[in-house]
């Protein structure tokens, strides 16, 4: 009774004063938003970046921890292991100068080779008793952890710079890219698991196609970490190329195609390249599409080599792409991608039938990381 009366009197007074209080509040809010609107927005954006940065730090630390555990699991547990891993995680590649673009591909290839050699050598020194497959897989784990470290440092750089300068546009740049960065980082976290266990990843779709075609046939090394097998497909001689598995490795398909074409003086009727490609939102994972051109991602060295040699001998090149999302490229292969591989094999056979005749020589290159896929 008493409580009811008290609440009633409070509400009556509140209702009388409410009108002008409300007006004053609105005026104050308008003035504050007018003067400090951008500052408030900046603060909100900084808060959002801070949250993502915290998440990225957890991912980065987890990556480091997985690398150390994976190395320890293979036997070596030296005192300086953590320090050594930290040093590798800070590894930086300096791109070649492009002011004079002449020979930039050769210089870029050299830098990539040195980097790969250096990373594998570091892993060998940490785990001397590991075999080739384990070294390749560990190198992949290290690379994923390095990428996570790099993402964390880039976002932290913009966050701290934005906080220091309170520049709306500096903060806006990273805030706009943040959803994509987070998506990619989460993909790298999933990749850590796949690389540690040596499971096939989405990027290996092309390698899986080649593996299926060359199974049971004689193989030989044609370029560093790259194998070729001569397979008879409906009376045509197909040179099937893939990276040497089952360790994590992309090989040198560009160099391999160049070697084959030069070996037969360009007497090749057709080059077919199969690779995983990033799908557009709305497209189905594992969908297969066809096109022309060199289907190779990466820094462009292999792509350049294929384009150059194909143009030199006038060999047509077809591309078969298996579509997948960014989060599937480096995480364990999905069932839909395996189904896409079967579809791609069917399409290869159809393209061969439509564009070549019996007795022709063709090249089929399965592009991608062959982790978890032998030959």
């Amino acid at each position, binding site marked *: 009774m008493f409580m009811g009366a008290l609440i009633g009197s409070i509400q009556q007074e509140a209702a009388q004063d409410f009108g002008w209080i409300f007006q004053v509040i609105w005026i104050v809010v308008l003035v504050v938003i007018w003067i400090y609107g951008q500052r408030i927005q900046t603060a909100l954006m900084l808060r959002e970046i801070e949250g993502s940065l915290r998440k990225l730090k957890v991912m980065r630390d987890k990556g480091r921890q997985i690398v150390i555990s994976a190395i320890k699991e293979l036997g070596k547990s030296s005192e300086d292991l953590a320090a050594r891993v930290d040093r590798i995680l800070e590894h930086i590649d300096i791109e070649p100068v492009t002011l004079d673009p002449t020979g930039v591909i050769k210089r870029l290839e050299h830098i990539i080779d040195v980097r790969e050699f250096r990373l594998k050598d570091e892993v060998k020194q940490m785990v001397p008793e590991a075999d080739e497959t384990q070294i390749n897989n560990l190198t992949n784990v290290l690379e994923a952890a390095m990428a996570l470290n790099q993402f964390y440092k880039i976002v932290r750089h913009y966050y701290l710079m934005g906080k220091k300068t309170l520049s709306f546009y500096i903060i806006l740049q990273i805030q706009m890219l943040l959803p994509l960065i987070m998506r990619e980082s989460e993909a790298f976290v999933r990749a850590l698991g796949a690389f540690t266990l040596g499971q096939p990843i989405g990027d290996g779709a092309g390698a899986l196609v080649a593996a299926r075609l060359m*199974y049971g046939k004689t193989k030989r090394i044609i370029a560093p970490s790259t194998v070729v097998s001569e397979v008879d497909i409906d009376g045509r001689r197909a040179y099937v190329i893939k990276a040497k598995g089952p360790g994590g490795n992309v090989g040198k398909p560009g160099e391999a195609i160049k070697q084959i074409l030069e070996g037969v003086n360009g007497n090749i009727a057709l080059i077919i390249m199969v690779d995983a490609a990033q799908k557009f939102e709305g497209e189905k994972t594992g969908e297969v599409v066809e096109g022309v051109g060199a289907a190779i991602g990466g820094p462009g060295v292999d792509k350049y080599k294929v384009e150059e040699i194909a143009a030199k001998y006038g060999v047509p090149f077809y591309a078969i792409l298996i579509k997948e*999302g960014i989060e599937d490229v480096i995480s364990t292969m*999905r069932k839909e991608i395996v189904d896409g591989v079967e579809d791609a094999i069917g399409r290869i056979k159809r393209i061969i039938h439509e564009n070549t005749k019996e007795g022709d020589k063709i090249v089929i290159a399965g592009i991608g990381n062959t982790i978890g896929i032998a030959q």
Partner: protein
Amino acid sequence: MGEKGKTRGAQILLAIIVLIMLTVFFWEDIFHKVPSMENIFLIALSIGTILLSLYYLLQVIKKPSDIFLESQKVSCVIRCVSCDYVSTREFEKGDFVLKEVGTCPRCGGNLIIYSIFRDVKEKERRSE
């Protein structure tokens, strides 16, 4: 309970107290007064505030997604190279595609791992 858990508990408690206070304060307006412009405004404000509090409460309670805790089932399809025998088992460390994993119980031919893939949750498939 860690520091994070304590803060979270305090936030939930605070949100519940605010929610109860607002409900008690505006109880009369919502259910017992004759509708007038002022009352309708107060009712709208009350409902808005309660909904906002509920939203805040849900945000606090909602567990942040932890991708490290996500477990994924990875399967291996095993096939015989001589006959049409097919079987499926879970992935084991050291497995890879085209690895020979024994002999066929039907014809004695070689069994190989034909494919390795992860099963995608329906939620993930639908979000594409």
